Structure formats: structure tokens, C-alpha cells
């Protein structure tokens, strides 16, 4: 199945250690969508039918088929053997032969771009925002950013404001998706590390309310879209990084 799709609508976008991020081309394309839909199981097809508009149907089919292709390749299973369960807040997990597998993944889409991120045995989240869309910064910033983040946005020049906004938004959303809570967590309660706000591509972060878990935040955006991943670090690695070892 993977070889059938290679060179098609998804491709490897980023890889570091056990972290893999696949880019999905979400441009309207009837043939691709029909092929993607054929890869989904009955439960997924039911979900696809329940979407009320073409865009979310397309996003779901193309991203879910890409997710299936990569998972089958990594897990060494067939498409028909692969199923999905759902954890708290609806976060899905992979199941093969009735057993939940320690292979985490997360999906995000915006405009023409979808990203599917994978990691073995640790939680992760991903967010992508198409730069061709104009974010409503005034409406959103107060609800999701802390005082320092908002002050930095206000101080940013016109040409940098949208870039900074999307950098902060994607990192925060990647974090709450990695935690599995989504927006049931008040994201204005915490601020991103100052180094990341100022443009560092990688940093370590502990949520103030859940300090036992340590997250690596990484800006993986490019010219076409802003994007970030957040993934769980083990304690030993986290302590090394917080002590100043190179990321």
C-alpha cells in the first residue's frame, strides 16, 4: 500500500530519531480522495459520511489514509489488520489484532497542508497553520496567550506579527494535543519558554500544573506553513537538556 502511494499525496517531511512527520497534500483531487477512501475501514467511512462539508471529508480521508500507510509500514501489518481505538478526549490509538500498540501519532491540517506525526512509545502532538490564511490575531491572542506573549505580539512589527502569532499558536496547540487535553486546558495559563518565543527552533518545557512530564517543543515550520511538534521526554534526557546540554 505504501509503495502504491509513494509519490502521491503524502511524503516524509521531517525525521529525527523516532519522530517522523509526514506531509499530506490536501488540494482537492477527486482520484486521490477516492483512493484514500478505499483504504478506510467501515467505522472510518461512517465518520467520513458524517462530515457535513467537502473540505473536512477530504482532510479526513487523505490524512487517515496517509496515517494508515505509514503505520502499516512501521508496524509491519496489513491495512485490514489495522484498527483504531479512542482514549480520553477522543485521542485515537492504533490497534492490531486486538492489542493497542505503543506507537503514538497525531494529525493536523490547515488549508492545503496536513501533517501526521509519529513517535514510538511516547506522547506527541503536531499543529500546522497555512501561512496563506490570515489569522484573526486580535480575536484569538487574548484567549490563548499569557501576558508576556501578548506584550511581545503587540511589540512586534507589522511584518513579523503574523509569523510570531503562528509560531506561538502552533507550539501551544502541539503541546495541548500531545497532552491529549485539547482546549479543555486553559492555554492562557502558561507561557512558552522565552527562547522559543524569540525564535529558537527547539526547547524543553514543563507545564506548570503537571511538572512531572517534560516536553520537547520543536518549530518545524517552513515558507508555506507554520508548524510545531511537541513530544514527551524521559526524565533523564530532560534533566540533561535542562542542565544546558545541546538539544
Amino acid at each position, binding site marked *: 500500500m505504501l509503495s502504491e502511494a509513494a509519490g502521491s499525496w503524502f511524503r516524509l517531511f521531517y525525521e529525527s530519531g523516532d519522530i517522523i512527520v509526514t506531509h499530506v497534500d490536501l488540494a482537492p483531487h477527486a482520484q486521490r480522495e477516492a483512493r484514500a477512501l478505499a483504504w478506510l475501514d467501515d467505522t472510518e467511512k461512517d465518520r467520513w459520511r458524517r*462530515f*457535513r462539508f467537502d473540505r473536512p471529508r477530504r482532510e479526513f480521508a487523505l490524512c487517515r489514509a496517509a496515517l494508515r500507510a505509514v503505520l502499516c509500514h512501521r508496524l509491519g501489518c496489513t491495512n485490514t489488520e489495522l484498527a483504531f481505538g479512542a482514549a480520553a478526549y477522543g485521542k485515537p490509538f492504533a490497534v492490531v489484532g486486538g492489542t493497542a500498540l505503543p506507537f503514538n501519532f497525531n494529525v493536523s491540517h490547515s488549508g492545503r497542508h496536513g501533517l501526521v506525526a509519529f513517535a514510538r512509545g511516547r506522547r506527541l502532538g503536531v499543529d500546522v497553520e497555512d501561512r496563506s490564511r490570515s489569522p484573526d490575531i486580535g480575536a*484569538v491572542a487574548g484567549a490563548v496567550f499569557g501576558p508576556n506573549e501578548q506584550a511581545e505580539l503587540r511589540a512586534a512589527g507589522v511584518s513579523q506579527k503574523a509569523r510570531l502569532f503562528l509560531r506561538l499558536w502552533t507550539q501551544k496547540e502541539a503541546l495541548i494535543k500531545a497532552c491529549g487535553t485539547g*482546549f479543555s486546558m486553559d492555554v492562557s495559563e502558561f507561557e512558552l519558554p522565552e527562547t522559543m518565543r524569540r525564535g529558537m527552533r527547539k526547547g524543553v518545557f514543563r507545564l506548570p500544573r503537571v511538572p512531572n512530564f517534560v516536553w520537547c517543543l520543536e518549530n518545524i515550520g517552513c515558507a508555506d506553513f507554520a508548524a510545531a511538534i511537541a513530544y514527551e521526554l524521559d526524565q533523564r534526557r530532560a534533566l540533561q537538556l535542562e542542565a544546558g546540554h545541546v538539544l
Partner: protein
Amino acid sequence: MASVEDRVGSLVEKHLGITDRALLDAHTSELGVNSMDGVAFLKAVGQDFGVDIAPEVAAGFASMRDLINHLEANAG
């Protein structure tokens, strides 16, 4: 004065581009609204009704009907 449902329906149409009022009862997961548009929409609703609706509160709404019920119970 317009009902809460009419006001929410107008805001849904203006900010999310959804014109079919029957979809006020659809599950939010079926609408495909992205999170950033959702947060901006809540801000607009909050301004229109003079209330704050935090994203973490809205995360518990299964449909626009739940939002309408919340506003009917909480908006002056």
C-alpha cells in the same frame, strides 16, 4: 429582539461560513471547524452577548445547541 438562536446562527454564518441553520444541532466534530476559527468565533460570540466563553468551557459543547443553551442560561 432576535432570539439567542438567531443571533448565534448569524454569527455562525458570518464567522464560520455555515448557512444551514439545521446544523446548529449537528455534532461539532461533523462541521470540521478548525481550532483557530473556533477560538475567534467564541470571541465574537462573547462580544455580541457580553460574556466570556473560555475555550476550555467551549470544549465541552457537543453542538452549537449547547452553546445556545449556555448563553440562554448565562448571558444577561
